[in-house]
């Protein structure tokens, strides 16, 4: 019954020069919390893999809590709306 929202999981500087390895790392990290790579792929919105490392995914609060305790996770921030000025 827990609703899920998009969250940005920020992992800091990229650890690999190969973006595909960075993406794999993101899926593995998310899978470790949601249970499977398939589900991780389903929940993944974006992988941030060039300028920095992180991903946006649809997460429940309990999953946010679990992820935030994993090593390498700098910060998890909820997706928010920005306005035109």
């Amino acid at each position, binding site marked *: 019954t827990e609703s899920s929202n*998009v969250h940005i999981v920020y*992992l800091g500087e*990229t650890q690999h020069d190969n973006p595909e390895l960075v993406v794999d790392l993101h899926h593995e990290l998310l899978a470790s919390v949601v249970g499977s790579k398939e589900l991780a792929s389903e929940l993944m919105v974006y992988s941030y893999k060039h*300028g920095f490392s992180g991903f946006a995914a649809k997460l429940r609060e309990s999953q946010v809590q679990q992820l935030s305790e994993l090593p390498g996770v*700098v910060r998890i*921030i909820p997706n928010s709306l*920005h306005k035109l000025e």
Partner: protein
Amino acid sequence: TTRSWNFLGLSPHSPSNILPKSKMGDGVIIGVLDTGIWPESESFNEKGLGPVPFHWKGACESGENFNTTIHCNKKIIGARWFIKGLLAEYGEPLDTSTDFLSPRDANGHGTAISSIAAGSFVYNISYKGLGGGTVRGGAPNARLAMYKVCWNLFNGYCSSADILKAVDVAIHEGVHVLSLSLGDSVPISTIVDDAIAIGSYHAVTRDIIVVCSAGNDGPFAQTVTNTAPWVITVAASTMDRAFPTSITLGNNITLQGQSLFTGPHTGFTRLIYPKSTKIDSTSTSICDSLSSLNKTMVSGNVVLCFTSYSEEALREAGCVGVIIATNPSDLMLPSDDDFPNIQVDYEVGTRILSYIRSTSAPLVKLSRTKTVVGKLISAKVAAFSSRGPNSATPAILKPDVAAPGVNILAAYSPLRSYADGGYAVKSGTSLSTPHVSGIVALLKVMHPSWSPAAIRSALVTTASRNGPSCSILPIFAEGSPRKLANPFDYGGGIVNPNKAAYPGLVYDMGREDYINFLCAVGYNTSALSQIVGQVTACSSTKPSVLDVNLPSITIPNLRDNINLTRSVTNVGPVDSVYKVDIDPPLGVNVAVRPDTLVFNSSVKTITFTVAVSTTHHVNTGYYFGSLTWTDGKHVVTSALSVRTQIADYTDG
């Protein structure tokens, strides 16, 4: 932009400005995160542009009504769109009928921003005859990469997940400048929870300059957004142009309002100050709702309204025009040709009301708006421009600089009814931001090795705090009441590109300075190492935010004596001697050691100490001063903002 670049000293007719030396931004790529782009606009023609910069890794993406081979050229060299974050959060199917699922801009905002930063020259453009001239960008030879992250859904919003993806891609593709005319709502996120701050940190550490809008929540204090110390935050000012509109009363007295009324004059028409037909405690003005208005009374007449009005209600009630007496807002909406809306201040409004009450048949004639430009009109900080102090990190002065952002004529989506031939007049810090982005592109050509912090320092320390050149009168900030502007209104002042190109000294910053800042705001060693990408520890003594090498000094809570440090790097003549000139804030002692800086071929950077103490015995508000280094030719000014806090409570 038909006036703004002339106002900023970048007229193409003047050989002495930096346009020729900067090759008008040739070779620089400006990434714009916005609502997309209208590629057919003449502002994006590729006439005279050489090949796409060789290092560019970006591309255009086709989509709805956007064909890469047709719509991208040597001006628009990148165009992508990001909507997955918005869709994932707000569910599918989202009503996308109001926008194009492509880089094409239905809203118009992104087209305007792009044309202001890097639009090509387009001659003889006006808004229905107003503000006529040449529309162009600050860096007309720079290239544009549009990253569409804002959508014409909910009237123009952008999700942080999409923004962050665009920043990630833009870093990879090789932009030099990122321009974000987007903001947060107040209360703003702290830097650690701010997606724009996070993404821009990684951009800036790769020498990409990030320029952001300060926000439109002014004139109230503590409303400034995009407050990270590594971005350039831009406030909005007016320029030396006005749009006066004559209001001629039946007694032949003519008063002046402001409008964008382009229709023929109304002829003498009955003038009414409407009375409400019922008590409505939810309405701020009689003119707000149709139910408040006496249709019989107002139909066919011009009405005088105070505070606010609803054009829809007035039109439905049969009014033929409105004079709105209000606090200054600097926001003028274009009038339809058949429905003039003229803004006046309360003083003029009261005079008109007095006239109405003095005669049995008051009449008024509303004339077509005129365009007036020149030195008689002084620039001021716009009322809507968000103000400091910075509510997230008060010791970091924000905004950094101001630039024109009021009544800017720029390219727009022709889908908007108020666009005249694809050009419209708009106001906001959105419009001031790309002015700075364009200038940054020019500086990047002239000084390719300067860091983002050095470029920011050059802009801030050389900005104008006085009126037009030759004037020693300080700039005002619009608000209630209008007041002398201070650093919380405009940072260093109104940007001065010709001086910024030759600042003499710069307050430079690099990765180490940003690490010290992150330590100061509380990141621990583990998080810091992740952010930086290598094992990094904060020093045992926690760094002070006051020591961040900004081109300004802001002390939000001075009680005891404080010593802070700054370093300046000589970017002028190798052998230079600078002396300090201090204008201390009221009741604050400021001493600088050393007070003379001697640069030569082996001494390029010098650190100095600023000792600050207060003579106040009570909590005060902010007092302002300045610290200036000068070698007789260059004048390098930093704003000083100091608040004494003796008692341990905050009183705003």
